[in-house]
């Protein structure tokens, strides 16, 4: 082992300094929201400067969030979209990936082209909106499930994974009398758990975080998914109407912390989960990018 030269040590030192700076810059905005959500509303409003700790301590914002009917129905709707949507996502994606990974099927190449083409050329927002509307999906949670039932990117990830499964497995299953559905669901899927996990995470995060389709397809507040509710709270200062009977001054204080608490409550689940799932996510990025 050669001793590191002076230049190398200076490089390493600056590298660590830069990385620590990166960590601070990444974390601070999130901590700021967390501190604000735990502060007392009136103290937070009068506070100026860099927030390094909650101002006072109060859970009023969280209480308001967790007792708010719009937010609760938002969670309920998002949960429905997540569960039913994931069902559609995973079923269709596995079927498509299985078909596209088989050998010696004549229409496979044209169908592959037919699918991949949609990644590069889209009809645009307005025709998409009008078509979904013409199917009668407006003001229905199905408008958030059916139009996004398959992601081409995810389909290709799964196909790549399926293609790497040894052909002999499939052949011997055939000899034992298994059909394609049995092979897919009894052999391929169990063998592909890492990629199944990746796709559930990708689709799941997608459903959890999405709001735009909900904004254009839904009018009925009862149907709004959680992110659309949060958007209305933080971007339109629509919180006075959500607080009900409290007096004006009280509600201004609570409103101030409610929006931060709403952010934490809807973001924390993913941020807390993802470090444990990180390796799967990372695997997905790599499989997807190498053979895109």
């Amino acid at each position, binding site marked *: 082992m050669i001793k590191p030269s002076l230049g190398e040590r200076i*490089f390493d030192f600056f590298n660590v300094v830069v990385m620590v700076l990166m960590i601070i810059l990444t974390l601070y905005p999130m901590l700021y929201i967390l501190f604000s959500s735990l502060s007392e509303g009136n103290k937070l409003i009068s506070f100026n400067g860099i927030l390094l700790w909650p101002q006072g301590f109060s859970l009023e914002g969280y209480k308001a969030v967790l007792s708010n009917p719009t937010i609760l129905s938002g969670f309920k709707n998002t949960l429905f979209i997540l569960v039913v949507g994931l069902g559609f996502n995973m079923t269709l994606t596995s079927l*498509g990936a299985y078909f596209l990974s088989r050998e010696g099927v004549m*229409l496979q190449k044209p169908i592959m082209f037919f699918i991949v083409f949609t990644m590069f050329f889209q009809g*645009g927002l307005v*025709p998409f909106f009008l078509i979904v509307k013409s199917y009668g999906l407006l003001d229905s949670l199905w408008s958030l499930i059916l139009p996004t039932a398959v992601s081409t990117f995810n389909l290709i990830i799964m196909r790549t994974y399926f293609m790497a499964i040894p052909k002999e497995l499939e052949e011997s299953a055939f000899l034992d009398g298994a059909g*394609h559905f049995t092979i897919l669901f009894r052999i391929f899927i169990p063998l592909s758990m890492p990629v199944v996990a990746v796709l559930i995470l990708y689709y799941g995060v997608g459903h959890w975080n999405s709001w735009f389709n909900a904004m254009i397809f839904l009018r009925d507040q009862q149907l709004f998914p959680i992110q659309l509710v949060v958007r209305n709270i933080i*971007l339109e200062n629509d919180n006075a109407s959500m607080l009900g009977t409290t007096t004006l001054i009280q509600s201004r204080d609570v409103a101030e912390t409610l929006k931060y608490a709403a*952010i934490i409550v809807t973001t924390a689940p993913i941020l807390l989960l993802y470090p444990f799932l990180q390796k799967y*996510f990372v695997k997905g990025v790599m499989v997807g990018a190498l053979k895109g």
Partner: protein
Amino acid sequence: MLKTRLGKDLLRNKWLYVMILPVVIYYVLFHYVPLYGTIIAFKQFVPAKGILGSDWVGLKHFEDFFSSIYFFRVIKNTVLLSFFNLLLGFPAPIILALLLNELKSPIFRRITQTITYMPHFITLVVVAGIIRYFTLSDGLLNDVIAFFGGERISFLQQPESFRPIYIISEIWQQIGWGTIIYLAAITGIDQQQYEAAKMDGANKLQQIRHVTLPGILPTIMIMLILSLGNIMNVGFEKIILLYSASIYETADVISTYVYRKGILEFSYSYSAAVGLLNSVINFTILLLANSFSKRASKNSLW
């Protein structure tokens, strides 16, 4: 009919075709029918008459767009925002990946990675919220400016601050995530090349320049083609969450204009025409970038 080759194949693989059928139906219903729906760009679409029944108007909507006062503004904003985003946002993860790769402590590297990936998972709704709270006239950024004796500015109301806000927040959210693919590419570089470089007396920076960078160049090229192919689709969800009439001057891009005209003002045909134009430009850039890269470096998408 079943005597033809295709007929035989359909029969032999019928269960496979049964499996792909729902997927094909999905793509037809939600991708190809909307693609077909873009013909309303050449019609005067009236909801009561439907897509087929509406009257043809030829290129009228395109001409309207070309001659509208918004044409130049939205094209300019789209191109500028994309250009700066590419110029600053594209190299950022490459630089971070190179630095992460040089970190001595594997634990510190893992921590840094885990933390810098995080913002990728935050929904744009929340990112927009954070941006808003930070840039308010009594927000954090202004508190700092005021502390140093500066003037408080309502950044999100100022046309000239929109582009920096957009690009900085974009880098904040995506830099860590973008490093994954480059770090994977770096892992694939043959260690012997580093040994050889060290023997020749290369220092850290020279090793990065002459070994690591050339090693990940194919990956960089593919990522560049993909970003170029998306250049006209600057993150419109984020813009919609952030902008307001007072900054349309710099923030209004083609896709937000399409959204306002089409979804909010019901000018369906006109905004379909603008959207179609956008798709065509995008696709053309992708084809050009791909064929250029194929010729220059043998890296291509197909």
